[in-house]
């Protein structure tokens, strides 16, 4: 069935105005405006009626054919309005491209009326118009039509119509050419020339295409450059942020410097104060924290214990060590939970506190016959435990009142037992000069020291020993009480600290630690202070400072 259910007569009737326009073609533009508007309206109305199914439905090929006629007829009218410069808004439904395509193909409509014989006759007479159509056909038209028919921006019914038209024209063109190249020698040459022209045009197109590609490549390069620029900008931003960080760090360093300056100012103030006070100021000349004090204590007790052993040599004679007893003056466990300036004391904190431990031993001369000489050695670590509890450190050397109690007790014990008691008192913060002077004085020797009592004081930081020069027993026992310091190392550190003080008014302990271990540096501080009449002072927030 060709027509499906469609009524062909009905369609023919509806198509009549459209066919009329198509038949007239571009020449319709010469019709009056109102007539063309009338035709437009008629075609539009009939097209609507056809689309509404007034004539039934047809097979798609036929349907495409009918619709292409309606649509192209409207296009022809639209082209006429545009060409005449008439304003007719509905004609805007067709684009310039559609109108141009129609016009170009319609240039060949002469083939609708010419027979092959007519064409040949015109060719023989070298008809310019016709030769021009052949030339364009060979050089570009065929390819151009192929391209335009593939262009989806053109309405499909319009493309359908143009395709059919072009194929019919092309058929006649090719038929005429095949005859002409046999019969007309010059035409054959002309065809070759057009073919070359077409090739050159194709090459030009390729070049243009390549240029397009180059442009694309350039665009790609530009994009890469842009990308690079973006990266550089990002890098610049990163550098900027680094700079900001550096500035921040510099500010931090400056803040630290300022802090140091404040410390320096603090030290200077202390120096000025000290310089203003004529009398000797020993208060605050030490700084021993709780941990260090505890270490001194354990070392001192351990060393005494070790030195005593089972026998000990005194005045060239061997003495047996008997009844060694270790104890502590202070029960620190009672400080657990106590609030102090360095926090509430825990069990661990308390274990770190010095307990003022002591060792008591009886030394009895080893001989078989005759009276045996004997001594009671009391080695006591003496510190102000309450200070360590409260502050976590002590900064003052021991005063007379701190040691008197031990001296008095020892004297009483000696008298009671009728035995010589050697008292060895070790202090982590050393002793005030007054203590040393007192112990070394004639008066002390006369009042306290007798055959019953000898006193030897040990400064655990400097290793300095203090005893009465008239007391030979104390001198002898000093060997046992003294702490062992590597003299060579001590001398090297002292030299280093001394060198660092050149051209300076003061130096903190933390600065001087470059010279060696803290224990030895501390000892060097105190020794230098004593020798050079400098001062060692604890400055809050700074620590121990050696000052000129």
């Amino acid at each position, binding site marked *: 069935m060709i027509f499906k259910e469609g009524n062909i007569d009905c369609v023919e009737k509806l198509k009549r105005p459209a066919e009329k326009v198509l038949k007239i073609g571009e020449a319709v533009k010469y019709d009056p*405006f*109102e*007539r*063309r*508007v*009338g035709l*437009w*309206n*008629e075609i*539009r*109305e009939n097209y*609507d*009626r056809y689309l509404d199914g007034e004539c039934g439905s047809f097979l798609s090929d036929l349907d495409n054919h009918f619709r292409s006629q309606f649509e192209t007829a409207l296009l022809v009218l639209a082209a006429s309005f545009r060409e005449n410069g008439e*304003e*007719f*808004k*509905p004609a*805007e439904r067709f684009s310039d491209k559609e109108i141009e395509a129609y016009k170009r193909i319609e240039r060949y409509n002469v083939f609708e009326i010419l027979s092959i014989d007519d064409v040949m006759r015109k060719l023989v007479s070298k008809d310019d118009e016709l030769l021009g159509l052949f030339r364009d056909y060979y050089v570009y038209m065929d390819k151009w039509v192929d391209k335009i028919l593939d262009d989806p921006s053109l309405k499909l019914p319009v493309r359908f119509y143009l395709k059919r038209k072009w194929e019919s024209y092309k058929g006649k063109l090719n038929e005429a050419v095949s005859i002409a190249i046999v019969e007309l020698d010059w035409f054959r040459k002309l065809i070759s020339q057009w073919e070359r022209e077409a090739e050159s045009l194709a090459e030009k197109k390729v070049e243009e295409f390549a240029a397009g590609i180059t442009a694309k490549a350039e665009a790609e390069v530009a994009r890469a450059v842009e990308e690079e620029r973006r990266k550089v900008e990002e890098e610049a931003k990163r550098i900027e942020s680094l700079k900001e960080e550096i500035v921040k760090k510099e500010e931090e360093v400056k803040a630290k410097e300022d802090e140091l300056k404040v410390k320096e100012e603090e030290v200077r103030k202390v120096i000025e104060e000290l310089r203003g006070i004529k009398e000797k100021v020993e208060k605050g000349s030490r700084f021993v924290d709780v941990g260090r004090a505890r270490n001194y204590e354990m070392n001192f007790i351990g060393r005494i214990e070790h030195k005593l052993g089972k026998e000990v040599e005194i005045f060239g004679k061997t003495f047996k060590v008997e009844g060694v007893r270790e104890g502590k003056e202070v029960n620190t466990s009672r400080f657990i939970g106590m609030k102090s300036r360095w926090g509430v004391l825990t069990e661990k904190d308390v274990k770190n506190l010095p307990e003022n431990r002591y060792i008591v031993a009886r030394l009895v001369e080893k001989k078989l016959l005759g009276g045996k000489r004997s001594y009671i050695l009391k080695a006591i670590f003496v510190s102000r435990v309450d200070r360590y509890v409260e502050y976590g450190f002590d900064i003052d050397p021991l005063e007379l009142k701190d040691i008197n109690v031990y001296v008095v007790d020892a004297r009483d014990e000696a008298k009671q037992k009728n035995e010589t008691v050697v008292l060895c008192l070790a202090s982590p913060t050393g002793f005030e000069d007054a203590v040393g002077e007192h112990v070394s004085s004639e008066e002390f020797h006369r009042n306290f020291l007798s055959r019953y009592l000898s006193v030897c004081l040990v400064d655990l930081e400097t290793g300095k020993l203090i005893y009465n020069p008239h007391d030979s027993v104390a001198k002898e026992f000093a060997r046992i009480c003294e702490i062992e310091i590597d003299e060579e190392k001590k001398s090297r550190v002292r030299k280093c600290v001394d060198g660092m003080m050149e051209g300076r008014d003061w130096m903190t302990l933390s600065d001087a630690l470059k010279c060696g271990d803290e224990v030895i540096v501390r000892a060097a501080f105190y020794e230098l202070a004593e020798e050079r009449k400098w001062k060692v002072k604890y400055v809050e927030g700074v620590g121990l400072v050696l000052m000129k």
Partner: protein
Amino acid sequence: MEYLLILNYESDAERKRIDYTIERWRNRVSIRKPKGAVVVLKGSESEFSDFIEDLFSRLELEPNESPEGKVEVYLLEKYKPVVEKKVRRLSYESTESLEIVRKFLDYLMAKLNASYEYSSGISKVYTAYTKKGQARIDVRIEKGEVTKITILIEGYGEVVDFLAGKVDYEIKTFLGRS
């Protein structure tokens, strides 16, 4: 009072018609087409403030030029102008056959530069384009003892009366009454 109109158009021809209308009104009112980019911003005052701050930082200014010289700001309020659609209804009767009347009306529509839009079964609808604007024309023909013609013209402004006058004149001429 100043009014800002945003005119959306679909084709170059429509744009031209808008331009033409503006030109025609130039001597009657103060009317101008802003040259720069026109932006309608919807947002809070602080958002607007942030936007304008950002915008000012992007402008290219001469050393002594202030950004206010480049940016005009208006506070907008939606305004719906009351424009009534005009409708003119024309009715005639003819002793001529339906076919002759239909052909005459087709001719008349073409003469009025009215293009066929669609058919509703009982009437055909056209759009007429004139220099005074465009209007919708509804053409209805009913067959009876006489052929009844009803023409409905709808639009804005003077185009309605203008077309009605023309239609009336042409139909009356056709009917031999003028």
